[in-house]
């Protein structure tokens, strides 16, 4: 018989870490709330009949956002055999609120007090026997991060599930409330499952709209219930929802007083608090954040003695894909005596294209490693806090920050992370703008131009990141002024996790996943595209005859590129590079790594490139001046994301028109910014001359400023929460 155990708990309490060690899975773990937005399933190691279900974090069973709804629906509708409730031992009061609700559900519950190592470290102790007795359920202490006690917790849950045993319901509420609940239970008996009678009664007492609809009571019964609720409210001089919350917290306080022995003063400043005094300081926070980002990009993509990412990438480009791989393949292909066209396909198409992308793997790995460390120690949560203050000044929701932070790895989970936002309008804006953040796949584009045109300056990557953030802010301000997206931003409450040393396992897992995903795409979709691209650039019509061409300027690819390149002429894409840049941009829609692959294939064509992979950089530097290169880079960073991200946008928007609006907006916005950068920047540096497009750029800039500065007529629009 199959046993299903649900992992439930507050956000960032360690559910996914526990899920990974229980099931042997490799799910992404982040040190901030909202990492899990959909439920995930796995089998307990050594118990193929036990299914573990990882649920998104919830603070209570009254959901406000879509991912909270996922958890509630599973817990209430899918009837798990047992619940393994993960409780953050360092924040036990707040976490036990959900515990009391889970116990009300009537399922067997095991409370796993997580982060017990931190509790001990602070000098506190938790008496599990007293805690279990007070809550009426089994309690075990664990440290998911250190792998302590997790098996005991899982085995206890399996045992309870097999025996269908759950403890006695604790007496959480006072007589008046219990009296009202008894009447409600009596009224709905037979209409809901007897196991859930108490839970439904409490929810109906709280006037939970979803439960009211679900139970489908007659108006007469509802009126009868309302009378009892109102009587209780009058007696307690409070509203029903507050009465329940207040009594739960009162009960939790009494439980904590009995079971938790605190030695440290509640108000003593912990090391985390001391660090936060600087890191989240009103004035210092932003410069510290900028410095951290600069250091990160300097190590991964800079041109300093400590820039290990660049050193390794240079080696990969110059030696590995510049000499070793082409050398070995050249020897093999020559020895086999392959035809010239096949030699060209492999060397000029696949090796040049895939090699150009794979050359950036070291930089991606270093960047991923540093980002994973920042996430795991807890700094990225502080980034969300810092950015929230900035975004709120512009009327945006701070909740948009988590998707942005996640999107630095990949836009797809970034877009999915927008589910933590309750309001439809804020969620739509976030989905529309998350793609502006440079993801891992866009890093090679930045690396390519930083290396080719800007002497490996880390400022290029840092500026790309901040342009992405600025685009989110500007877009948010503009979009919030449209009636369909207007409204006050949703409140953002996020707990800052305690700083801790990065877990080698978590950091290694996250780094490996990002790096491996990058390699996988380079060896699948990028490889296939490089073959197609090689064919299109190697053949063409000469004097009306279809044949192999030695000059790729007369190839089929050039014909296709030239047919649409005029669109980008105002952005400075002119001359021979125009069709190459156009083709690279369009191939980038398949996956952003393709931009670099395209340049690798186009500039490597017909043996133009010799031994050093980096020679491609000199060709690119010759075709792209600094402003043109920057304009091209910005357009590719901000325009429509890859197809996978477009799919994610479609899924989250759940509406074709909104999806089209999002993609259209991103393309138009990218074009406008790129136009301004090239026309006005080029005018200053002398790379562009004054033309009608300069006037157009000024007009676009004025238009953008107007859209940003104009009064928001819908600022006070009330919005509904879209669950």
């Amino acid at each position: 018989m199959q046993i299903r155990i649900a992992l439930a708990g507050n956000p960032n309490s360690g559910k996914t870490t526990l899920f990974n060690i229980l099931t042997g899975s490799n799910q992404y773990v982040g040190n901030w709330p909202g990492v899990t937005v959909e439920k995930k399933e796995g089998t307990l190691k050594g118990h193929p009949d036990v299914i573990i279900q990882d649920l998104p974090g919830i603070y209570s069973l009254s959901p406000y956002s879509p991912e909270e709804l996922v958890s509630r629906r599973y817990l209430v509708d899918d009837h798990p055999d047992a619940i393994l409730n993960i409780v953050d031992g360092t924040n036990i009061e707040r976490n036990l609120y959900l515990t009391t609700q889970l116990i009300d559900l009537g399922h067997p519950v095991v409370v796993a007090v997580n982060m017990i190592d931190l509790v001990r470290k602070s000098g506190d102790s938790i008496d599990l026997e007293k805690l279990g007795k007070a809550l009426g359920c089994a309690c075990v202490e664990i440290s998911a991060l250190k792998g302590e006690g997790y098996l005991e917790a899982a085995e206890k849950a399996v045992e309870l599930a097999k025996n269908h045993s759950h403890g006695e319901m604790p007496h959480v509420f006072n007589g008046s409330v219990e009296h009202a609940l008894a009447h409600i239970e009596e009224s709905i008996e037979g209409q809901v499952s007897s196991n859930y009678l108490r839970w439904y009664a409490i929810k109906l007492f709280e006037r939970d709209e979803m439960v009211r609809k679900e139970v489908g009571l007659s108006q007469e019964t509802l009126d009868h219930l309302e009378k009892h609720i109102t009587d209780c409210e009058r007696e307690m001089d409070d509203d029903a929802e507050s009465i329940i919350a207040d009594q739960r917290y009162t009960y939790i306080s009494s439980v904590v007083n009995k079971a938790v022995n605190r030695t440290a003063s509640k108000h003593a400043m912990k090391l985390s608090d001391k660090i936060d005094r600087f890191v989240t300081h009103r004035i210092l926070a932003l410069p510290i954040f900028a410095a951290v980002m600069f250091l990160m990009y300097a190590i991964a993509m800079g041109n300093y003695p400590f820039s290990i990412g660049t050193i390794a990438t240079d080696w990969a480009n110059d030696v590995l894909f510049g000499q070793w791989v082409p050398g070995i393949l050249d020897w093999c292909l020559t020895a086999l005596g392959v035809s010239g066209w096949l030699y060209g396909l492999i060397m000029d198409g696949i090796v040049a294209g895939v090699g150009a992308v794979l050359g950036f793997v070291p930089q991606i790995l270093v960047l991923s490693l540093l980002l994973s460390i920042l996430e795991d120690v807890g700094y990225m949560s502080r980034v969300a806090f810092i950015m929230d203050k900035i975004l709120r000044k512009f009327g945006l929701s701070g909740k948009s920050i988590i998707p942005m932070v996640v999107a630095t790895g990949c836009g797809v989970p970034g877009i999915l992370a927008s589910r933590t936002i309750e309001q439809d309008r804020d969620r739509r804006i976030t989905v529309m703008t998350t793609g502006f953040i440079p993801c891992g796949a866009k890093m090679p584009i930045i690396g390519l131009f930083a290396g080719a045109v800007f002497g490996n300056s880390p400022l290029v990557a840092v500026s790309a990141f901040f342009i992405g953030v600025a685009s989110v802010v500007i877009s948010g301000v503009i979009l919030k002024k449209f009636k369909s997206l207007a409204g006050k931003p949703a409140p953002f409450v996020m707990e800052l996790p305690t700083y801790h040393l990065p877990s080698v396992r978590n950091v290694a897992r996250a780094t490996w996943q990002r790096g491996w995903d990058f390699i996988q795409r380079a060896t699948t979709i990028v490889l296939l595209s490089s073959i197609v691209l090689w064919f299109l650039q190697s053949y063409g019509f000469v004097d009306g005859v279809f044949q192999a061409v030695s000059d790729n300027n007369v190839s089929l690819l050039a014909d296709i590129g030239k047919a649409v390149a005029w669109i980008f002429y105002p952005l400075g894409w002119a001359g021979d590079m125009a069709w190459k840049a156009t083709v690279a941009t369009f191939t980038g829609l398949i996956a952003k790594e393709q931009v670099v692959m395209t340049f690798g294939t186009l500039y490597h064509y017909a043996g133009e490139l010799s031994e050093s992979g980096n020679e491609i950089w000199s060709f690119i530097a010759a075709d792209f001046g600094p402003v043109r290169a920057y304009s091209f880079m910005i357009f590719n960073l901000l325009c429509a994301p890859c197809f996978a991200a477009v799919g994610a946008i479609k899924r989250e928007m759940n509406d074709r028109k909104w999806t089209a609006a999002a993609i259209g907006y991103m393309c138009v916005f990218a074009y406008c910014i790129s136009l301004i950068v090239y026309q006005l920047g080029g005018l200053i540096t002398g790379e562009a001359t004054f033309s009608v497009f300069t006037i157009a750029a000024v007009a676009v800039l004025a238009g953008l400023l107007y859209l940003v500065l104009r009064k928001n007529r819908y600022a006070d629009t009330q919005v509904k929460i879209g669950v």
Partner: protein
Amino acid sequence: MVQWISAHCGDILVLAILGVVIGRILLRLIRGKNSRGCCGSCQGCSCTGACREERTSG
């Protein structure tokens, strides 16, 4: 025929290897699965496992 094959055996060998590689990639893309058993809609991108809702892993 034999002469042609012996003259092009290098091409045939390389094309066969290439065919297997491309075939595997295409199969993976058509089946819509990546190595972690996901639906592949994320093209192997930092996978959240969201598509594995009903799938058993581990």
